[in-house]
């Protein structure tokens, strides 16, 4: 089943073409890693696809009415805002808003989804603490749990693992992989190419607003392409069946 279709999506930010005519589809069961250097258009592509930025071309999500879109896709922005000292549980429960009838109390299904998401991101022990009192990485995990609690068919996340310790980076990627394995799909922008290679079923590489590569990780992450797009020389190997990638030095 196709969960997202983009046709010739273009996003302008001021005078700059942030995304130039991107066409792609995300199918159920995929964990798509969006990779590319800073300013390549990863965030703009996802925000344009969600209708959060005015965009040219077509996006199946942006075409939906706001409420339906919120049930079709969850969005984890890069900026980790928590405006008020609400408890972590309250914060995570915000993910249930699109599924709840306005004014009605949470159902058992809502509470279970919140508990599952908190357990998944290892924040259940903070449930009753004000979210603003947690450390940066803990807040990030609580916010990922919020997006997971939404239980949308498609989850889009902007640099979800930034600022997490290695164990929780793995936990986050495992959570997204579990979404894909369970018949949903996720798309995440990533700067850690090792994690991207290890967990994603497919990578889309952007450079200056265009898709320059799209396919399985080993096909996308070649030494030549990393040199061309990122300007880095990399160590690429296979270890116990998994792709290992380590940038070593800058080219040129």
């Amino acid at each position, binding site marked *: 089943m196709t969960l997202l279709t983009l046709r010739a999506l273009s996003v302008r930010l001021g005078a700059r073409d942030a995304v130039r005519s991107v066409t792609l589809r995300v199918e159920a069961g995929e964990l798509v890693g969006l990779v590319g250097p800073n300013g390549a258009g990863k965030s703009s592509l996802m925000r344009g696809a969600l209708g959060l930025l005015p965009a040219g071309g077509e996006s199946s999500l942006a075409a939906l009415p706001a409420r339906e879109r919120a049930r079709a896709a969850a969005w984890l*922005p890069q900026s980790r*805002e*928590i405006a008020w000292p609400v408890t972590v549980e309250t914060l995570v429960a915000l*993910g249930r808003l699109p599924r709840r009838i306005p004014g009605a109390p949470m159902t058992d299904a809502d509470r279970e989804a919140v508990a599952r998401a908190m357990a998944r991101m290892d924040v259940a022990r903070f449930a009753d603490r004000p979210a603003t009192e947690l450390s940066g990485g803990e807040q990030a995990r609580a916010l990922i749990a919020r997006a997971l609690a939404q239980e949308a068919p498609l989850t889009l996340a902007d640099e979800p693992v930034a600022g997490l310790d290695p164990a929780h980076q793995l936990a986050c990627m495992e959570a997204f992989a579990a979404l894909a394995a369970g018949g949903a799909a996720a798309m995440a922008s990533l700067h850690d190419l090792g994690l991207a290679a290890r967990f994603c079923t497919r990578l889309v590489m952007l450079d200056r607003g265009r898709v320059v590569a799209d396919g399985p990780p080993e096909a996308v992450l070649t030494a030549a392409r990393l040199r061309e797009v990122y300007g880095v020389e990399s160590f690429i190997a296979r270890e116990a069946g998994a792709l290992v990638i380590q940038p070593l030095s800058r080219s040129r």
Partner: protein
Amino acid sequence: MRLPYPWLLAALGLLVAALFCASLLIGPAGLGLADGLAALLAGRGEAETLVMREIRAPRAVLGLMIGATLGLSGAALQGYLRNPLAEPGLLGVTGAASLGAVAAIYTGLSLLIPLALPLMALGGAALAALMLLGLAGARGGALTLILAGVALSALCGALTALALNLSPNPFAATEIMFWMMGSLADRSWLHVQLAAPFMLAGWAALAVAGRGLDALTLGEDAAASLGVRLDRLRLALVLGTAASVGAATAVAGGVGFVGLVAPHLLRRAVGARPARLLPAAALGGAALLLAADIAVRLVAPERDLKLGVLTALVGAPFFLRLVLSTRRGLA
């Protein structure tokens, strides 16, 4: 341990009810409890009935409604702007309504037509709402709205100062000054009838914002992705504030600090959830304003101490204390 939310609302409701009754029983006529109630409910005694039904009752009702308006709109604005320092005056509606009233006094219209002052104040608030929506249009974010409000407030403040500067005689100047201090003295049912529809409509617009304000805890992008229509939320907020705060200013003048302090006082008690803060802050604002209006009558019965002066006098030091406790919380 925190009070469960329904109990908190019930306790606040009781407090408001008690203060409302106290407001009915305090005044220069010096009626006893039994006389006062007999006059109010059964119409016993001609002078007493007049005092209770035509002077004290509208004053207490206005105190209740204006306090609730200030608390509710303060909580809604703080939630929308995600800033605990926001208050109803920030949008420039208070300034614009004041300017309308000042214009009525300045031109002498308020002497010719009895309701010219509140009507022109309402007109000022309506103009302010149109300008805000024009400036911070459909795609403007929270920051645009604040900037538009600040610009509008500054402009209205300057024009009000100009009216004072050029006022035709010292009496008009004095009247403008006293009006701007804010008061509930000598208001009639006419004022209630004029203000109530706007306040109720404003409350209705602000009350539906709760869900969107909750989602905004995560920022504008995340809230939009949760299905919140930010353009509609902003429209409800601007129109709701303009109608309710505009009407409050039109009948009572500027009453500061209630809209700032009421949400602050109750935020912790509702677990900082913006939607839950709305009704709590409305009740809290009503309690604060009724208490302040009782205080002005008790502290200086002969001197006509203005309500806005008292709320600022008590509110500012109180706010300083909040600042200090916030600093300790951060350290």
